[in-house]
């Protein structure tokens, strides 16, 4: 079970969180004309990387905040966690 540092609450066990997918995906703006390809990339196409991955988790049984977690998908090492609105360098 992973040990995830919620930027709001501190270290918590994985079973308090739910996984939310790739955090680098940006939703296209509303009312903007975009190609099918762009839309498909937003809705469906994911790389399923091996290695460092920026992903979303929600602290469901805690503060209910969506957070960003930088995690290695192969080793499960967590490098850093960020608040939803935090700039990631």
């Amino acid at each position, binding site marked *: 079970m992973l040990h995830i540092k919620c930027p709001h609450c501190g270290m918590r066990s994985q079973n308090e969180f739910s996984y939310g997918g790739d955090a680098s995906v940006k*939703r296209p703006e509303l009312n903007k004309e975009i190609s099918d390809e762009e839309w498909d990339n*937003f809705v469906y196409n994911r790389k399923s990387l091996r290695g460092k991955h920026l992903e979303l988790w929600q602290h469901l049984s805690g503060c209910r905040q969506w957070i960003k977690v930088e995690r290695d998908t192969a080793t499960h090492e967590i490098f850093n966690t960020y608040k939803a609105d935090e700039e990631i360098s």
Partner: protein
Amino acid sequence: MTQKFRIENGGLINRDKKLSFKFNGKTYFGYEGDTLASALIANGVHLVGRSFKYHRPRGFFGAGVDEPYAIVQLYRNNETEPNIKATEQELFEGLEAKSVNCWPSVNFDIGAINNFLKIFLPAGFYYKTFMWPKSFWYRVYEPFIRKAAGLGVASTKHDKERYEHKYEYCDLLIAGSGPSGLASAYAAAKNGARVILAEDKPRFGGSLLTSDVNIGNQSGEDWANSIISELKEMPNVIVKNRSQVFGYYDHNMLVMSEKVSDHLPKTKKHHPKQRLWYIRAKQVLISSGSIERPLVFGNNDTPGVMLSSAAKEYLKVYGVLVGKNPLVFTNNDSGYETAIEFKKNGINPIILDSRVNPQSEIIDEAINLGIKIKFSYVVVAAQGYKKVSSADIAKISDDKKQLGTIENIKCDCICVSGFWTPTIHLASQSGNKTKFKEEIDAFVPGTSKQNETTLGAANGIFTLEETLKDSFMAGQDLSKKITNNDNKISFPNVVEKKSSQHDKFWCVPLPKGKSYKRFLDFQNDVAVSDIEIALKEGYRSIEHVKRYTTLGMATDQGKTSNLNGLQLVSDIENKVVPAVGHTTFRPPYTPISIGAIVGREVGKHSKPTRKSPMHSWHERNNAVFVDAGVWLRPRYYKQGNENLFEASKREAKNVRTNVGVCDVTTLGKIDIKGPDSAELLNRVYTNAWLKLPVGKARYGVMLREDGIVMDDGTTTRISENHYHMTTTTAQAANVLSHLEYYLQLVWPELNVNVVSTTEQWAGAAIAGPKSRKLLEKLFPNNDVSNEGLPFMGYMESELFGVKARIFRISFSGELAYEVNVESDNGQFMWEKIIELGQEFQVQPYGTEALSTLRIEMGHVAGSELDGRTISYDTSLEGLISKKKDFIGKRSLNREAFTSSDRQKIVGVVPIDKKTSIPEGSHLVKDAQAPLPNKKLGHISASCWSVEHDNPFSLAILKDGKNMIGEKLFVMSPLKNKVIPVEIVSSHYVDPKGERVRS
């Protein structure tokens, strides 16, 4: 009955407490502190089972967790449990055990014919033989293999025992209480660290209990006892025996199984049988020791051939002789320790040492004691069927390839020692890439991956002094970093005998003309010849060889066989062992009972049960409940001898003719506040929300980004910036997360707050033509006329002094209202409705009637919004705004979503107007068409229409829009039904929707 193999004195058993037990129906005696294995050996019982494949006789090989043979079926307190190792099961009064994998009995086993057919059962036999014809697999092969295979029988009864889960945090978790575990625990505890020390056996001390050493002028055992007593007194230390740390998971999470009651005849009241500990440790010290390696020779699986360390443990811990005429076959000094113990107890062992001329203190001691030693000698084959009776031995050449003349010597057991294999499972599970250590011919942990340190024998260190030094230091250093304390501990004086180098020899060659089976894996019956076949057939990767031959895949996970298997592969391939590599170690280290994994989450405990505030009223009024997600909802209220069908028909009919009341507390409710609330709703729902006036409700449908309908419900504008959203019962949690996702991540600029209020409000739906009359009685001070409270209107009021919200919304299609009060007042509200509704013939109705009403009205629910349908499919496309963008809109122009013969919701009525249509049935054009018959659609929900008094169903049908009036067939192969049906509109009742507005 005398125990012929129990020595007069000695051992750590309690000779004052005699215990009786039964094995295969026969009664024996043992002592408190025995294992089932030690008690059986004391009674001269060496035949405990039959092997998995060839059904060869099986005895005891080890004395603990590594045991591959002695697996029994245990009977305890009217329960039975398979796959119990006799070497681990502690004896208790009245214990009963039986052999497994043998029929009709362990002494005469019909399956043993496989032993003579073994030439036909080589590696990969099953793969090669049972491939074809394909149809034979289910009918012939599989049942046959199922009957023949197996290591015991799982109980089919409900397990009455209790299993617990426990979560614990600590600074240091120490796995194993041998010398390294004790030393590191002691040092860390003295520094004030929070320590958990776990030992899988009942007794602490590990190898100290059996080795002839001296620490600080105490015997190893006394030193261990004094350390343990001190640790037990310390408040910062948890000391646990019978507790196996079996898995090392991510982020220093380890799982330990504690056998709380398995050693007792019966679990004590208020105690669990087993307890699973989830431990998050800052640092982990792995002091899991090592397991002796077997030597490989002909018939080395004969009962009586066992590890020399096991023979020593039986003698020193249990006071039991594994034989009275022992042969010790060794390639290192460990065998001598066993021989010396025999000699000290008046037994004359013979030592065969494969080494040419080894010299050490231990060998000198053996010589001085007058023990007969033969150097450069090996056991070629064990003789005897159900027990060793003699051994064929021979001199071996210095290059270990040639055997001299074979001699036969009498013996009743062969104690083998092929040196030691560090137990690196936990380290490897942590992600540590292990490395091969040439000096000990085994793998040891490499660079730490998580916060783990491996100590002592598990790290390939086999001298006590070095082990203790390393461990004291590790305990001290690691705890210092956590607690900032630095208590110096004086290092005790250690006396131990020095050993000499072991022989890099592990497999005795076959003598000319002989084809003895030489076993590597004793539980899965994998012999040297099987590995040879696998390699000949082209298998190279050790992972493939393992799976093809099943080497190391039995319940013991190859604890005694893996390294010998690797040695063999590397010998044949002319590679070195590290190049071959070892297979992956995966948790659990030992089998864990399913009960322990499940814990308390069984049956009704597997999820919380949520009840509405009106639950006790429902109970008092004969409600029959149904699980709706985690909620318990009344399905119907039974009157007299009514069944489900009759009751739900009565309740639904009463709604259509009079008035009914339904508990709708379970509906998800989300409170939405903030100046941008309308904008959020406008983006979330497919229809327009910006102009909804205060005091009005609106029905909305929300999509996922892929265009599929996610949920539906009504949202009401309570005040300027305050909305009350309802969701379906099932999607309540998902919708909240969905809103939070968009508010926090996608549109953080929206100033809106959302919070679940599902449990804050109790809800009652009041539906039927007389509902307004009832409402007038409930709220005499309000104008609830069609003008005062029109369809989709909202009003705040007081119900006899209790704050209430009234929504004029309808799921049943009748004139209907939903009244919400704060949960604490739910029961009061309900009772008032029932009381004041009497004159209008009010009746409560359950979920079954609720379904009937919505189905015949063509209102969609979860069975239509099933994660596969879009708005069009459920005839909700009228709610899609063309003017604005919303979540999922861009997906709606997908080709499949816009195709002209797209599926659509329809109504289905059986031609005979009698036959009920099973839900999930398929709609087909031709009932006689050959299979697979082309499916045109499926029945999503069925009911008995109370309006028309005949069966009615909803279906999602291909090109449903153009199918009204068509005649099709409903097929349910499951229920063996074919029903001719007519397709009608999904709005079977009041298609113009006049009633809700009346």
